[in-house]
C-alpha cells in the first residue's frame, strides 16, 4: 500500500515537471534576483568551481590548521580582488590566473604536496584575487549589490565545503587515492581552461 502511494507521488512529481514551463518574466532585480545572480555566478563557471573545490580539498588534505585557514583566507582576499574589479584597477591575465589556479591547486592535491601553512595561504590568496576580480568586474548593474555579494560569497563557501567534505576521505587509503585522483582531474580541467578548450 505504501509503495503504491510512493509510486503515485513520484508520477505526480514527474508529471508536474513535464507540464511545467520556463518562467520568462523575471528581470533579475531586487533582493531575490541579486542573490540568485550572485549565487549562480561561481557555480556556473566551471573554472571557478574547479578552483574553489580544490581549495577545500587541499585544506582537508593538509589537515589542521589549513583546513580552516584556507577557507577563511580565500573569501577575504577574494573580496580584495572584487574591490580591485569594482574600482577598475587593472589586473593582468585574469582568466589565465583563474585557469592556473585549477592547474596548480590540482597538482598540489595530486602530488600530495604538504606545503607550510604560510605558503598554502599565500598561494590560495594569490589565486583568490583573480577569482574575486572576475566577480567584481562582472557585477550586473541591474542586480541588488548586497544580495549579489551575499549570494556569491555563500556559493563560494559552499564549494569550499564540498571540497572539504570530499577531502575528509583522506583518512582511508582508498579515499586518499580518490582525493588525489580528483586533484589530477581538476588540474587537467585547468589545463583545458588554459588552452581554451572548455
Amino acid at each position: 500500500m505504501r509503495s503504491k502511494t510512493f509510486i503515485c507521488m513520484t508520477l505526480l512529481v514527474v508529471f508536474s515537471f513535464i507540464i511545467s514551463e520556463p518562467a520568462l518574466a523575471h528581470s533579475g532585480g531586487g533582493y531575490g534576483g541579486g542573490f540568485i545572480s550572485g549565487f549562480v555566478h561561481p557555480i556556473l563557471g566551471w573554472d571557478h568551481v574547479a578552483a574553489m573545490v580544490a581549495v577545500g580539498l587541499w585544506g582537508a588534505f593538509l589537515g589542521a590548521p589549513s583546513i580552516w585557514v584556507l577557507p577563511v583566507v580565500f573569501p577575504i582576499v577574494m573580496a580584495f580582488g572584487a574591490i580591485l574589479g569594482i574600482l577598475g584597477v587593472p589586473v593582468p591575465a585574469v582568466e589565465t590566473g583563474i585557469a592556473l589556479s585549477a592547474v596548480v591547486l590540482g597538482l598540489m592535491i595530486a602530488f600530495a604536496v604538504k606545503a607550510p601553512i604560510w605558503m598554502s595561504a599565500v598561494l590560495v590568496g594569490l589565486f583568490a584575487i583573480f577569482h574575486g576580480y572576475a566577480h567584481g568586474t562582472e557585477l550586473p548593474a541591474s542586480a541588488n549589490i548586497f544580495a549579489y555579494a551575499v549570494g556569491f560569497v555563500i556559493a563560494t563557501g559552499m564549494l569550499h565545503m564540498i571540497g572539504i567534505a570530499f577531502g575528509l576521505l583522506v583518512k582511508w587509503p582508498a579515499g586518499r587515492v580518490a582525493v588525489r585522483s580528483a586533484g589530477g582531474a581538476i588540474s587537467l580541467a585547468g589545463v583545458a581552461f588554459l588552452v581554451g578548450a572548455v
Partner: protein
Amino acid sequence: MRAASLAILAILCLATPAGAHSPVPGIEGFYLGLLHPISTPAQALLMLGLGLLTGGLAKASARWLLIAFFVATGAGLLWTSGAVPDMAAFAVATLASTLAALAAGRYFPAMAALVVLGGLVVGAMSVPEGGLLRERLITMAGSFIGANLLLLYISGLVIIVKERASRAWIPIALRVAAAWVAAISAMMLAIYFAPNPSVASL
C-alpha cells in the same frame, strides 16, 4: 511575582492599537527603534561582525566589551551632526569581522576599540531625522535597547555554542562565517568608491 503579572496584565489591557504611519508599515516608535539595528544591510553586517568578534572571547572578557558597547551606543545617540553614512558601518564591519576571522579572541585592545567605534556608529545612525522630541526619544530608546540586546544575543549565542558543543568544526565554522561577513562588507564598502557610475549608483 503576582504583582508583576497583574501589572503586565494591566498594561496589556490598557494598550490601544497603533494608528499612525511609519517607514515600516505597522511598526512605529519604540518598536521601529528596536528593529533599527537590522533595518539596513550596513547595520545588520556591523552587528553581525561585532557579535562574532565579541563572541570570540571567553564569557568573562566578553562582558567588558558588552559594557563598552552599551556606553558607546548611548554616546552615539547624542550625535547631532547629521546622518552618518552607511560607509562608516561597512568600514567598521569589515575590520571587526576580519579580526574575528583571522585572530578570534586575540588583540583585546583592538577588539575593544572596534566595539566602541561600532557602538558609536550604530548609535549615531539611530538618531531620527525629524519629529517631536518625545517621539524621537522613544524611538532612540528602542534603538538603544535593540542594538544592545542584539549584540548580547549574537555574542551570547556564539559563546554558548563554543562552550557547550565540543565539536572541532564549530570554531572553524564561526571563523568562516566571520570571513564571509568581512568579504561582503568590504565589497559593499568598495561600491562607494567605484568609478563606474552604473555600479556606484547601486
